[in-house]
């Protein structure tokens, strides 16, 4: 994949609110993100919201002959150095915690996958301000 964003192209943020196994959103967003990268675009940030936070669980364990979407996303995020945030309120409700939140709420384990950070909706508001395009991948039906 190309790694130097071309000048003059719009910068993107992606919002994923569709769940991992209740929608196609994380998969479509990944295909789109790869197309952005291969055409020299910059991805400013990825923001997971609502059911979309399910992508960031380190405990997702699909069978070996199915795509591991969490891992596939982690590879892209690391390769391209893209910050990815999981909304804290969405995450805590659904049992997705980093060590700090696990300690704060006295929960027995943390399960946030590497490459993702827990943060507030302010990161989304910032994406609306900073990125030329904010593309939303919602759940389907």
């Amino acid at each position: 994949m190309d790694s130097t964003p071309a000048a003059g192209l719009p910068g993107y943020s992606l919002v994923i609110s569709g769940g991992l196994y209740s929608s196609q959103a994380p998969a479509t967003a990944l295909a789109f993100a790869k197309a952005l990268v291969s055409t020299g675009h910059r991805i400013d940030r990825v923001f997971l919201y609502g059911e979309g936070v399910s992508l960031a669980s380190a405990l997702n364990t699909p069978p070996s002959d199915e795509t591991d979407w969490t891992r596939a996303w982690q590879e892209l995020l690391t390769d391209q150095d893209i910050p990815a945030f999981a909304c804290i309120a969405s995450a805590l409700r659904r049992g997705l915690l980093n060590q700090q939140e696990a300690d704060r709420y006295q929960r027995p384990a943390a399960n946030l996958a590497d490459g993702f950070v827990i943060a507030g909706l302010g990161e989304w508001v910032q994406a609306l301000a900073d990125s030329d395009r904010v593309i939303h991948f919602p759940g389907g039906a």
Partner: protein
Amino acid sequence: MSKPDSKVPPVTATLHLVNKTPDHSRFAECLLAMGQGDYLLLMENAVVAVADCRHRLPPDTGFLVADARARGLGDEPSEKGPQPLEYADMVRLTDRFHRIVSW
């Protein structure tokens, strides 16, 4: 029918991304919200609309080929009707339209 990247949309023109089947209320709401210069991109489950005889899709409509192939729908470009698009074509659309709404 022109390729989506061949024209410059007006500033207020909107790219509509729809991922729900034509039976979902958002699909109809999206069609109602379409204005002059807008483009409709069918993604995920919305691609079944190309086979749905109950709907007349707007002239500027495209569908994602990967989603169509997965669902056994033809991906040949036709003289009239929705245009098959790769993800790279989708990027060309999102580059071109300043306003993008997901339904």
